[in-house]
Structures are given as C-alpha cells and as structure tokens.
C-alpha cells in the first residue's frame, strides 16, 4: 500500500482505516470507524454528514489536533505526500500545521485572537515557519490580505478582530491559512456556517478563485448540501462515524446510492419535489448513541429499506458505477 501511494503522484492525502475513539468516564465513544479516502492534488473533497458524525474528528486527526486525552487515534494511517503523519513526533507534525496543512474554522467571530492585530497574527504564522524578519512577515501578511480581497489591506492589517465584520474575519482567517508558500491542503471546517447567505456566497467564490491561483487541495467539512453542490469535486458522506457513500459530486446529486444520502438530499428546501409544498421531509428517528453502537449498519434504525442483515453486519463496499461507491445492503434503485 505504501509503495503504491508513494508512486502515485496524483494523490496528496490518503486516509486508510482510520479509527478514533474518545475514552471517557462513561465509556468509549467510537467517533470514527475504519474511514478511508483519498484527496487528489488540486481537488476539493467535501466531507458531509450531520453533527456528531465524525467529520470534524476525521479532519482534526489529519493534523492531530484532537484533544488527546480523551481522544485517541487507535488505528489507521494518514499518508500526506507519501509520509504517514500518525508516525511523526509532535514536533514534526507541528512543522506541517499551518505550512502544508492549514485550517479554517467555523466561527470567524471567535477564531481570531481578540488581543492581537490581524496583521500580527498572520505574520506570526510566517515567522513560525520561515526565518524572515518581522517587517518582511508583516509585508507578506498585508499582501495576503490583499489576495483575499480585503479592502485597504495595509490599514486593515492594523485592525483588531472586533473591528472587522464576520465576512472580513473569515477572509482574514483564510489569509492566515494561506500563510505558507505552498499550501498543500486546506481543511475548511464549516467555513460558511456562521455567515449570512450573501457573505457565504462571497467566501465560497473566494475559495474557488484562490484554488485556481494557488495549487492546493481543499477538504471541505460541511452539513450544507448547497455548499457541496457549489464547491466540491467529490463527496464523502459520513454517518455515525462510518463512511457510507463516496461519489463525484454530480453523480451523488443525480443518483444518490445510500438511503441516508437520499434523505439528506430530500430534506433540501431547494429540492424540485417541494414545488408548491410547504412541509419539508425529514429523516425520522435519531442518531444512535456512539457509546453503545454495534458493529452493524448504524443507519438501520432510521432506514426504510432496513432488512435483517442490516442489523447483523456492516455492508461491504459496493461500486455502483466507476468512482461511486456505497456501503449499503440495499443496492439498486431507491425511491
């Protein structure tokens, strides 16, 4: 496997059989269970699922920012440019953070340090990874603010976070994430959730433009199918710690293969079937408790296609068409 990955120049990041557990007083919470996927160079991969499905934990496992303890990566490999990140020491992984693997977060209001100037916070990232002078780092920070289209960047660099609007702050966050010569992977953890819709569109456009300019891959974590449709190339759907479907974005929206994905798409207000209707369709039931969850399919209790076998074992991968796989016992047409 390792050899194959090393030789594959297409793939930037490869997660293999990742298992993350949280060891709490109440017991072991199985947050991520044998999840595998690849991100190609220059690609935007969306990781989709509802709150608590393990998408953020998976993303945080990449640069190992899971609070440990109680979190623990119990199994798996994460290859980045052919190197297993999980085998690196804390000091070695730190060199990746903010340099080749950067992150932007959900809450632009709280994700920037309130007591330092924007420019200073970005310059600090430069100075962490490169031997450059304060002046030089500051100048580069201003140039980045310009790149993310913040008006009058030189004076904005002197602002404190509370002087900027939510959208501006998210732009500043993105600038901070770009503070390296070659951002390999940008992990965007719900980058638009806390913003209002017009700003959301602006930020997504900005990310798309940046991707065209800089060679980088984006791992987009979101629960918003609208955002997925707009930005992603490929989609991985997660449910209760398991990967349940993986497809090109077009295929996923056209022919969802997993009942859960279908449920997600059906609950979109923009779905055609709601024309003239006022009520949305929701997925009935509740997410199973991750403390007591069994080895069978986690969606079984909410799935209208559930059969006996669904309560016995977790399905194997089924490739429904090239590049489109589902993990479900119900293969075939869903209605």
């Amino acid at each position, binding site marked *: 496997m390792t050899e194959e990955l090393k030789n594959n120049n297409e793939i930037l990041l490869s997660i293999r059989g990742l298992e993350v557990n949280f060891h709490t007083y109440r017991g072991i919470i199985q947050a991520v269970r044998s999840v595998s996927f690849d991100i190609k160079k220059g690609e935007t991969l969306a990781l989709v699922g509802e709150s608590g499905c393990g998408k953020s934990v998976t993303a945080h496992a990449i640069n190992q920012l899971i609070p440990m303890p109680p979190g623990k990566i119990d199994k798996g490999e994460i290859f980045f440019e052919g190197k297993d990140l999980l085998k690196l020491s804390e000091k070695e992984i*730190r060199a990746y953070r903010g340099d080749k693997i950067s992150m932007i977060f959900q809450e632009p209001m709280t994700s920037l340090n309130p007591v330092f100037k924007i420019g200073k916070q970005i310059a600090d990232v430069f100075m962490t990874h490169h031997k450059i002078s304060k002046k030089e780092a500051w100048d580069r920070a201003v140039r980045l603010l310009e790149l993310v289209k913040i008006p009058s960047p030189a004076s904005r660099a002197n602002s404190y976070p509370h002087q900027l609007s939510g959208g501006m702050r998210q732009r500043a966050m993105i600038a901070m994430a770009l503070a390296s010569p070659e951002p390999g992977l940008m992990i965007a953890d719900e980058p638009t959730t806390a913003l209002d819709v017009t700003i959301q569109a602006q930020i997504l456009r900005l990310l798309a433009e940046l991707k065209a300019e800089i060679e980088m891959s984006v791992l987009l974590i979101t629960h918003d199918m609208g955002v997925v449709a707009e930005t992603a190339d490929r989609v991985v759907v997660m449910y209760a710690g398991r990967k349940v479907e993986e497809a090109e974005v077009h295929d996923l929206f056209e022919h969802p293969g997993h009942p859960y994905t279908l449920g997600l798409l059906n609950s979109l207000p923009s779905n055609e079937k709601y024309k003239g209707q006022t009520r949305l369709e929701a997925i009935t039931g509740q997410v199973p408790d991750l403390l007591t969850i069994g080895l069978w399919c986690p969606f079984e209790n909410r799935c209208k296609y559930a059969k006996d076998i669904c309560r016995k074992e977790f399905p194997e991968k089924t490739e429904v068409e090239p590049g489109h796989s589902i993990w479900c016992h119900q293969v075939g047409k869903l209605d």
Partner: protein
Amino acid sequence: MVRFLIKRLSLLIPTLLGVVTLVFFMIALSPGDPARVMLGERANKQQLETLRAELGLDQPLGTQYGLYLKRMVRFDFGKSIKTGRPVMEEISNLYPATIELAFFAMIFAATIGIIIGVLSATRKNTWIDFTSMVGALFGVSMPVFWLALVLIMIFSVGLDLLPTGSRMNVRYYFESITNFYVIDAIILLIREGDPKYLSSAVKHLILPSVALGTIPLAIIARVTRSSMLEVLTQDYIKTARSAGIKESRVVYRYALKNALLPVITIIGLQFGLLLSGAILTETIFAWPGLGKWLYHAIEARDYPAVQGGVIIISTTFVLINLVVDILYTLVNPKIRLQ
C-alpha cells in the same frame, strides 16, 4: 488613548471629593469629643471651649466642612493630637515604608502566582496541579502573623540568613533621601559605589514581603488558573495550534495575554488591601509603616491623624484603580477603542 486618559483622569476629581467627604462625615458623626480626648478628663469647661474654638469645632457643620475642604486641597491635615507634629509630615515619613513593602510583596505574589496558575492550568489534573492548588488553599487560609513567626523562626533564628525585622542594618550610618530605602540604597550605590546598603535593604524586605504576599499569591494563582483554563478552550487557541505555533508560545503569548484581564483586577485590589492591611506584618517585623501608625492613631482618637491616614490610603486606592484601568487598555484593545 489620549482621550481615554483625559476622561479617566477627569473622573478622579469627583471620586476623590467623595472620599474626602465620606471621611469628614464619618469622623464628625463618630462619638467622642476630640477636645475632651486631647485635654483629658480633668479639663474644665472653659479650657474645653477654648480648644473647640481653636479647632473650629464650635462652628456649624457646614462651615466646618467648607474649612476642611479648603485644607484638603492644600494637603493640610492639621497637627497630630498625640505628637503635635503635622500629620502630613508623619505620613510622608511612614507611608513610603508601607508602599515599599506592599510593592515587593505584590511583585512576589504576582510573578510566582501567575507562574503557578499557568503551570497548573496547562497541566490540569496532574500532581503539579493538585500540589499547587492545595498549596494555594493553605496560602489563603494561613494566618499572616503565624506565617511571619514561622518564617522568622526558620530563616532568622534557625538558619541565621535574614534579619528578624526593621528596614536597614542599624549599624550602618544611613540617612534616607526618599524614604524608599531601596531607591535610597541604589542612589548610594551609584554615588558611593558601596552595595552594602542595597543588599541590607533587600535582605530586610524578603521575609515581610513573603509573609504579606502569601495570601495574594494564593488568590492570584487560583484566578490565573481558572482564567487560563477558560481561555485555553477558546477557538483562537485552536487556530494558533492549527497554524503550527509552538505550544509554549501558544500558552505564554496567545493565551496568557487574554487570561490576564481578571488577574490584573485582582492584583490591583490586593495591592490596595496590602497598603491598608499590613498592620500585622508591620508589627511583627518592626516595620515602621503607616498601618501600625494608623492603628495607634485610631486607638488614641487622634482625629487629624486618622483623617489624614484614611484619605491618603483611599487616594492611593483610587490611583491604583486608575493604573489598573490603563493596564486594561494595554492588554485589551476592545476597551481601548470604546
């Protein structure tokens, strides 16, 4: 920033006026006749009335208040009944000793307290955390006089390392210039090149500072710990970590600057308390400070002295609060720009 300062300084005047007024009425309303106290039980009516007229006590309260305010503006607190010397002169001899002691106690408490607080927050639920928090609990609950005596027993009597009391080796010929002995000693060191004064002044400060600073230290450590624990869970700390910034820098720069706000408040309040509440420490270490003097003044109903002492201490308190506010703005840009 300049506008903030002007605004803040202009607020000082009503605050100080309030302090001065409160002190006046508290003393005017308190039972006991100053003239009687001064002249003793055997004084006759005539003598009492003469003295009352001299002190202005026969005037209506309003007139007395007006006269009092006039004197206060000139920092004229009158003469001490007990010693007959101007109150201001006595205070300016004694207060520097108290300020010096409180200052060093606070430096000791703040540096050690913040370090302990940060260490136990970053190593939450380890033995370092438990030991320092149990130690802090001991620190808060320890009576100062007992701690002072134990310190003297160990370091002065037992190990013979540090002096038991007073401010300077009595055998040195030492004439004070500012009444802050450390500053005086530094001046002497520069002028005469003799470090013995400085080393003696510092040595005399160590034990009383530790005794006086232990309670504030414990409080500061606890406040720093809880404030740090809260800040370390904030999103911007995760941002800093995800940007690859070193953990030590994340803690001591990104987190601590945010966590310091409540700590600065506590340091200011504690400093004010130390200035007025150092009586026990001053007594045990024979420290010629204001606390002990004020205590005796109250006992002797030395009204001018009490008045002067209380006003000076409250004024200092108000000024410390001003400094705290200014420090706030330096740490937190949100306040600065409002």
